[in-house]
């Protein structure tokens, strides 16, 4: 079948959306951008195609009366198992890479101990992965780096302590290796992995297997790809396949909410305020200037500084009932400000609440610069998933612009890619 793909190469994550020729979304995929853009584009596209398969499965299972009412469960089971297979595959790659990286004077005479510690760590990682992928478990991140990393820290530190070994040594091997693993092009054989996931799953019975297999057999043809985002110039695409991220964001938001007039996107290193007209055409836009203060990366730094997952910041901030005023949104100095405040005896949740407000205040300024907020308003980007940030945004929008419908789509991080995919359809179909 004909697939139209939009890829949004952002500074921290790369997103892809697959559409059919009727502008229906078939799949979405995301990965972290890191250093190799070709790989990031390939991985996100592959992820979107995996998601497309799931959509096709859903369509196929829709006509199987035996599973009616149970399709959601079956598919989430299938996906969960698929992800687990994928995780274990990457974990193995990581372990091999780590072992290969134990060389040089730093390890002289200690190779054996270090390898043992690594093996111990990875064995625990494999064991605990089953729990991570158990039904109903909420994972901290979508990315291998984050998932493996967090587990590696806790297991590794424990293993090293038991072995009387400095953790820094192992951590360094991990840092070196994860970058190599991430930048390797993705392994193929999607279909094989789905089959293995099926086998691993609790569901058996021929009534499912046949439709799934037929869905697996549908060829996915990449009819037209449009690239956008911060790194678009580095994408290996001809110029006519590249669109400005502003345009893609505007159009993407319009596709999700046709009545939207103002869009705010908070990305890793930029914040954009966009006004769109009733047909999704951008009328006006503003972005932050040469300084990335108050962008998504800011929260990343804060999370690192507090030794927390990015997903945990919002919930902690929600616990605050006395917000601390934070005036600096310089990303790097955020850590210093945080320490300053902690030293003054302020509570973590109160500081965090203040930091979230600071980000939103920056965004409010950019919106103001772009011409204010008109009904309907759509908030997109990674920060749109953060409940504390959303709470502040709602408050400030109401105070400054009154009652405005605020749209936040759980898949809003894909807005730019969605716009790109729409452009791809238009390039061929219209």
């Amino acid at each position: 079948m004909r697939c139209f793909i939009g890829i949004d190469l952002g500074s921290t994550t790369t997103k892809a959306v697959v559409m059919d020729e009727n502008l229906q979304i078939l799949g979405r995929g995301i990965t972290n951008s890191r250093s190799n853009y070709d790989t990031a584009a390939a991985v996100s596209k592959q992820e979107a195609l995996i998601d497309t398969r799931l959509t096709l499965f859903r369509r196929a299972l829709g006509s199987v009366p035996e599973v009616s009412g149970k399709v959601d469960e079956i598919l989430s089971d299938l996906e969960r198992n698929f992800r687990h297979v994928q995780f274990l595959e990457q974990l193995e790659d990581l372990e091999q890479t780590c072992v290969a990286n134990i060389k040089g004077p730093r390890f002289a005479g200690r190779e054996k101990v270090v390898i043992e510690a690594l093996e111990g760590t990875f064995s625990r990682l494999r064991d605990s992965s089953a729990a991570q992928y158990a039904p109903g478990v909420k994972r901290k991140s979508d990315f291998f780096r984050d998932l493996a990393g967090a587990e590696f820290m806790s297991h590794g530190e424990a293993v090293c302590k038991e072995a009387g070994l400095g953790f820094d040594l192992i951590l360094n091997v991990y840092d070196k290796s994860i970058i190599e693993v991430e930048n390797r092009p993705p392994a193929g054989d999607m279909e094989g992995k789905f089959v293995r996931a099926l086998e691993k799953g609790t569901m058996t019975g021929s009534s499912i297997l046949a439709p799934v297999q037929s869905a697996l057999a549908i060829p996915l043809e990449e009819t037209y790809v449009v690239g956008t985002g911060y790194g678009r110039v580095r994408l290996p695409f001809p110029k006519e396949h590249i669109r400005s991220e502003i345009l893609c964001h505007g159009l993407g938001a319009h596709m999700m909410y046709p009545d939207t007039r103002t869009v705010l996107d908070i990305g890793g290193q930029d914040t954009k305020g966009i006004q769109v007209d009733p047909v999704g055409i951008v009328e006006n836009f503003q972005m932050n200037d040469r300084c990335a203060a108050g962008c998504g990366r800011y929260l990343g730094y804060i999370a690192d500084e507090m030794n927390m997952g990015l997903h945990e910041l919002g919930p902690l901030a929600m616990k605050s009932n006395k917000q601390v005023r934070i005036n600096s949104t310089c990303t790097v100095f955020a850590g210093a400000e945080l320490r300053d405040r902690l030293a003054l005896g302020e509570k973590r949740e109160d500081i965090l609440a203040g930091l979230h407000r600071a980000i939103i205040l920056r965004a409010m300024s950019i919106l103001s610069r772009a011409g204010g907020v008109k009904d309907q308003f759509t908030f997109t980007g990674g920060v749109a998933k953060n409940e504390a940030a959303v709470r502040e945004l709602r408050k400030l929008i109401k105070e400054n612009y009154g009652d405005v419908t605020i749209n936040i789509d759980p898949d809003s991080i894909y807005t730019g890619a969605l716009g790109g995919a729409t452009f791809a359809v238009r390039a061929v179909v219209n």
Partner: protein
Amino acid sequence: MSKPEAIKEPSMEMQKAMIARNYDAITSKQETGRKVSSTFVPGNLNELLMCFDIVNNLPEINAIQAGMRKASGGYIMEAEKSGHSEDVCTYVKADIGQMSKGNIAPNGKPYPNPDVLMLSYTGCYTFMKWFELLREEYKCPTLMLHVPYEGDGHSTKNMRDYIVKQLKEVVIPGLEQVSGVKFDIDRLRQYLRNSAKAEDNLVWCLEQGKVKPSPIDAYFGGVYYIGPIFTAFRGTEDAVTYYEMLRKEVQGRIENHQGPLTPEGTYFNDQKYRLIVEGPPNWTNFREFWKMFYDEGAIVVASSYTKVGGLYDQGFRHDPDNPLESLADYCLGCYTNLNLPTRVDLLAKYVEEYEADGLLINSIKSCNSFSAGQLMIMKEVERRTGRPGAFIETDLVDPRYFSAANVKNRLESYFQMIEQKRRGGGSKTVAA
């Protein structure tokens, strides 16, 4: 495909020779015994200085030259090392840094110390500090001409009288003393007559931006067109000849339906977007910056930067019949001496009269006189014209503040937006 041979126009060669002659006159002052003044572009009193046989040296132009030669970055660092803040104007720092690096003019010879600092402080606060700083260096006489700002949108008799009085009682006696030449008002009248002639032709050329395709680029090309009249040549016969020549060239391009020449030496005929630009250009990456425009088919049809040294297209001419008063009016009317509402009026008028797609602002970190308030200007011009504006940020001569990727991203987004709006057809504007 082989590269076509770059075309050059006679006016360019002539200007180049004029500039070279002026640098030679400056750097050979020991031999010729001529006096040299340092002064600024906006509100410069070139005709008056000529009356005293004083050669005119312009530190702003020297900083631009250093920027285009890619030397300004080093000079700025030098000035910052000696205690100048990272926050302040890079023209000043390039000038001061250049001094501690031998102060070599583009012709390879050292700049002599000026005999007088002619501080005609028009529309820019920093000028005042700049010459206070240079005064500490050169310890030479400094003549301050305070030009009041047109805060209420117009000049007043009091302002004009104040300037004329300063000219009569401070500037002219000061220049007589420095040069040993007695002031002759008829000489000034003759120079002003020349100025007015050249100004007529300049205005004609700038107004051809209304033609489609535009035979001129009123920003990147514009900085060359204004060269002689804004600097050491206004009032000279050379400048009169230059503008006659320029006019003929523009006329020729109109007849051939040609656009202006790009630095690559080809005519830029395929013009997709017509822009009005506000703010000075970036000099360190001037060609790269320009290329981002013509590569995308964007032509600048009018700009405010070409008005910093005089708002001739709005009717002002130097007037031999009222010489000192007309110098006062000239100073008062320079673009940066206008208040914000007046600047908005002017830019909105350009958008309409030149049938532009919108206003693009190049916001310069160094220049608060231009930059403070530009976002308001953009909002207002968008509101009044219903055409979208765009905002990019660079600096005059500090290479650290030119982020090519950032500028390109915004420009491309802007052009694609205009394109999309055209295709979308009839979509209504941002006007509230």
